[in-house]
């Protein structure tokens, strides 16, 4: 048992422990893999509507898995905790940044739809501006999340999220690979890394935190000490 009395460290350690199950890593990795799958589906000749349905269904399945994992695997092993006002305020800031990021993504998507239908002009269509916007947005969002949530590996995930789009474009321009395949490769590789990290963390978590056998009759009161 540690007797370290640095209270901020103690709170940070307690908060970080809620990320030890690897579920966030698997979730974020699968979302990237989903984007890679999306480019493959887009290039496979499947009608766009069906591609959208398949990708949305996959995201919903990932979300459901994440929720079920937290509820039925993590919480019974790790326990429940409610953090104090300072931590809640930090999390609120992350939510605001995430909301703005999603809003920006939706606006970009709507603008893209408008441009595709001919109602809005393409903005610098010849330049891969969206790739840079995407990259900057990912680095900022994950950077803010990593800073306020004290989860260092989110900085790395920010880079992993930022790179596939511009790298895919570079790959398509400089190799014989098609754009679709380039994107699938870069998104697939970048998505596979968090998933692998998450699986390792998850296995380690299951070993480290077995289901508690509650009650003095099972654990024994013999070890009660003053």
């Amino acid at each position, binding site marked *: 048992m540690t007797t370290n009395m640095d209270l901020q460290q103690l709170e940070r350690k*307690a908060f970080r422990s809620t990320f030890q199950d690897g579920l966030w890593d698997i979730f974020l990795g699968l979302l990237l893999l989903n984007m890679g799958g999306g480019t493959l589906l887009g290039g496979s000749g499947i009608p766009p509507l069906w591609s959208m349905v398949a990708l949305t269904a996959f995201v919903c399945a990932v979300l459901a898995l994440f929720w079920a994992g937290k509820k039925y695997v993590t919480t019974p092993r*790790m*326990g429940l905790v*409610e953090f104090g006002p300072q931590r809640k305020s930090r999390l609120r800031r992350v939510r605001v940044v995430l909301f703005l990021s999603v809003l920006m993504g939706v606006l970009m998507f709507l603008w893209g739809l408008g441009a595709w239908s001919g109602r809005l002009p393409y903005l610098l269509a010849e330049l891969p501006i969206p790739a840079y916007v995407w990259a900057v947005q990912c680095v900022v969002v994950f950077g803010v999340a990593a800073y306020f949530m004290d989860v260092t590996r989110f900085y790395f995930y920010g880079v992993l999220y930022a790179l596939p789009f511009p790298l895919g474009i570079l790959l398509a321009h400089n190799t014989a690979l098609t754009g679709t395949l380039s994107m699938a490769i870069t998104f697939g590789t970048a998505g596979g890394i968090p998933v692998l990290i998450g699986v390792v963390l998850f296995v380690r978590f299951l070993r480290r935190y077995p289901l*508690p056998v*509650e009650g003095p009759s099972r654990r024994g009161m013999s070890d009660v000490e003053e």
Partner: protein
Amino acid sequence: MSKSEAGSETLPTIGDIDRLVHEPARLMVLALLYVVESADFTFLMNQTGLTWGNLSSHLTKLEEAGYVEIEKEFKGKKPHTMLHLTDEGREAFREYRRSMKQVLDDLPD
């Protein structure tokens, strides 16, 4: 003031230290509950490394002293125990920190 005089003045302060808080396992539990709003039994067990019986025993003492409030509730059909520091417990922990700091600061080299 000579070092021996300074040393003798710290003795009453050491005597004033709250022994209920001073015990390492309870101190760890109190420190954890101080930095979070509330936590359940399993979380405290994992974070402190204490066994069920051990933690239960310490929590009973802290509850009897009025430092910790134990809320038993049902999540679905399962019983669930959430714990949080009372205002008295928070103040006791703050006072303990102040006293210990003073004792250690006043100790002669």
